[in-house]
């Protein structure tokens, strides 16, 4: 297959731009109205933030290799959203504790994932799929008493609103940018990050070079869970309501976003910038389909097909016959 000479995150951004231009040409699109175009662009970016944050944990586990993936992140988002909702209950001073609880819940579930994968040698797909069922069970229990809660004003202010009238940049976008820089630091400027890429590339070499593969694996999945928890916190801060299916729609797109961004699904190579670009692309696709008034079924088929095309390009394994 032809090798792409532009780096995947850049390619993804280019794709995003093309898609955005296309969306303008549609009947319901912004046409030649630049103001509307700018507003729509900012809105897309703002929507992409949530997918992007939720896809951060996914990026980590996929980089960690050995068919790493986290199918429980969707349900973690929902659970932590509910937890935040209930804990905060409208009080500003309870926002920070709620955030901590979200991170802890996510980290705990992630740790269980990591433990099953590392010690019981269950494949990540199967383990996290099973775990998502358990978390869903927990959600039903948490939900049955008709959850009462409310987000705090400060959350809405910081997450759902723009910075100020003069700078109509959504706050969420700023949070995402800072988050992105932190993720970059984590992956490229810490021992943890270097070790993560190492175990994703070759676990034997990593161990023989002193990396504690077990600890890294547990840490990667725990961190992924915590980041999903952070995602849940943000999502509920944005929407202000909780539903049982709150997090599930993010799951498949989060994996596609990572793949679009150029992170190898086999591990050992990738970046969060790529995932960010991928999240924007995927949000654009969804938004395009909505503008074209396509039903949910078409959206699903397009997403499934997109991932299929992506792995056909990026994911081909060594042929039996060389």
């Amino acid at each position, binding site marked *: 297959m032809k090798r792409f000479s532009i780096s995947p995150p850049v390619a993804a951004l280019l794709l995003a731009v093309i898609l955005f231009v296309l969306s303008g040409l549609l009947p319901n699109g912004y046409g030649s109205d630049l103001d509307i175009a700018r507003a729509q662009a900012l809105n897309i970016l703002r929507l992409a933030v949530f997918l992007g944050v939720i896809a951060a944990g996914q990026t980590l586990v996929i980089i960690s290799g050995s068919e790493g993936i986290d199918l429980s992140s969707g349900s973690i988002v929902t659970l932590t959203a509910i937890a935040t909702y209930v804990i905060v209950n409208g009080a500003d001073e309870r926002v920070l504790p709620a955030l901590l609880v979200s991170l802890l819940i996510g980290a705990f579930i992630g740790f269980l994932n990591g433990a099953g994968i590392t010690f019981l040698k269950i494949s990540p797909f199967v383990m996290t799929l099973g775990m998502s069922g358990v978390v869903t069970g927990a959600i039903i229990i948490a939900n049955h008493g008709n959850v009462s809660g409310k987000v705090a004003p400060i959350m809405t202010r910081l997450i759902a609103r723009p910075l100020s009238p003069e700078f109509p940049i959504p706050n969420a976008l700023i949070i995402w940018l800072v988050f992105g820089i932190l993720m970059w*630091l984590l992956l*490229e*400027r*810490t*021992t943890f990050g*270097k*070790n993560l*890429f*190492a175990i994703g*590339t*070759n676990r*034997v*070499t*990593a*161990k*023989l*070079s*002193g*990396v*504690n593969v077990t600890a890294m694996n547990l840490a990667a999945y725990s961190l992924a869970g915590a980041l999903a928890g952070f995602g849940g916190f943000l999502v509920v801060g944005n929407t202000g309501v909780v539903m049982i299916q709150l997090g599930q729609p993010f799951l498949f797109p989060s994996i596609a976003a990572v793949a679009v961004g150029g992170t190898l699904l086999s591990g*050992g*190579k990738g970046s969060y910038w790529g995932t960010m670009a991928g999240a924007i692309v995927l949000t654009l696709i969804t938004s395009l389909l909505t503008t074209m008034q396509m039903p949910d079924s078409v959206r699903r088929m397009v997403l499934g097909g997109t991932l299929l095309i992506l792995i056909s390009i990026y994911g081909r394994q060594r042929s039996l*016959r*060389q």
Partner: protein
Amino acid sequence: MTLSLSARNVVKRYGGVVALSDGSLDVNAGEVVALIGANGSGKSTMSKVINGVVVLDGGQLLIDGKPAHFPSPQAAKALGIATVFQELSLIPQMTVADNVWLTREPLGAGGIVSRKMVNARTEELLALFAGTFKTDLRPDLPVSELPPDEKQIVEILKAISVDPSILILDEATASLDSRQVQRLFELVNKWKATGQAIVFVSHRMEEIFRIADRFSVLRNGKTVGAGMIKDITEKDLVKLMVDKASVFSFARKSGQKDEKPVCLEVSELQTRTLRGVSFNVREGELVGIGGLQGQGQRDLLLSLFGDIPFAGNVQYNGEPVHFRHPRQAMKNGFALVPGDRAREGLLYIRSILENMQLPSWMRYGFPLKIGKAKKDAEQTGASLNLKMASLMEPVSSLSGGNAQKVVIGKWLMRQPGLLLLDDPTKGVDVGTKAEFYALLTQLCDEGKTILFYSSDDEELIGLCDRVLVLHDGHIKTELVGAALTKENLVSASLGVAEGDEQ
């Protein structure tokens, strides 16, 4: 059916690596041709081109003089070409019988495999090697439960079960004991008489001269010589295999090591393959580990490094140590250069910098001072004469020798006190080998201790102060000074005469 096959000017690339640049081979009915070459010369690749497992990038194949093309292993098999693969082509979970007859199972009614016939025919084949098995080898045993020599015999039986016109034996004697090798050669002579052609891929001189009629020598992917065995001597054959007459014009002055203190004491070390190994090493010594493959050399190095569990006592610099993870070993100044560079020593898709700093990132603070890391790596790379485009290039862009330098550099950066080397010059070109020997000697002069396993006897003799020869999980002998000769090394490797076993 007899067949003759010729390979002419074959070219084969794996990605960026050229395995064969100009390989040729003539295989004629009723004779044994030895395909000879050092590790990495392209022998296995040549046999994989002939049997259709890989597709050639250049050159041609001729069958009975006519150009031929194998789109798949099935095509070659259909013509009657069978192979005993170096990396056995057996399915571990399946039984001996199922493995032998795979794709050629005798069928009964309705396409159902006839178990009776399968077992009966397998017994017939096993009978060919009767009397050479140490255990009860039955057709219904899963292959995973067999010892290495019996696995190899099953692989051989599988190949001959198709009654091939051309039989390729790729390092087929690696795991066999002398009785089994003898039996195999008896069978080979019988097959020759019936018109089969046999390709004997090996680097074991003694066996080659016993069984082969003709030879063809590969060196670094090129065929450099061919002819009749009776017309050549072992020494000349070796000369063809290597660039220079002998790599070992390397003279190592044996320093006085007796006054140096003992730094490593190993007593009764046991692992799955080691049955109680005890020895001492003095500071600054270059101690070699010899013996046939698979006698526990790897286990010895890995257990000392903390990668595999072991029983026994180890003392380093007077302190008892028992590492349970390489990290602990590293903290005590140990370093391990593993045997399979691609699978154990490198992160192929990552940069040279990342490879060299993999064990050492925590030295660079938070956030990582990449600039300093680059400088340190460059320094080490320069001291090793590492030829690279830049530190940020992936390690896959380097040649074999340079890649091995990265592996060594990774450890040298940490100033280790004890280096454990597992066959470090395998697949490395001659020029780099010479650099290595100089490097190792220099390290010893600086007071570092080296424990060094090599499958190359010449290397062991030329470089080491002493050599511990492992056989059957024990140290058979320790060879020092005048006793360190090739003959002594080889005979110790084979264990003393068979009757001498406990």
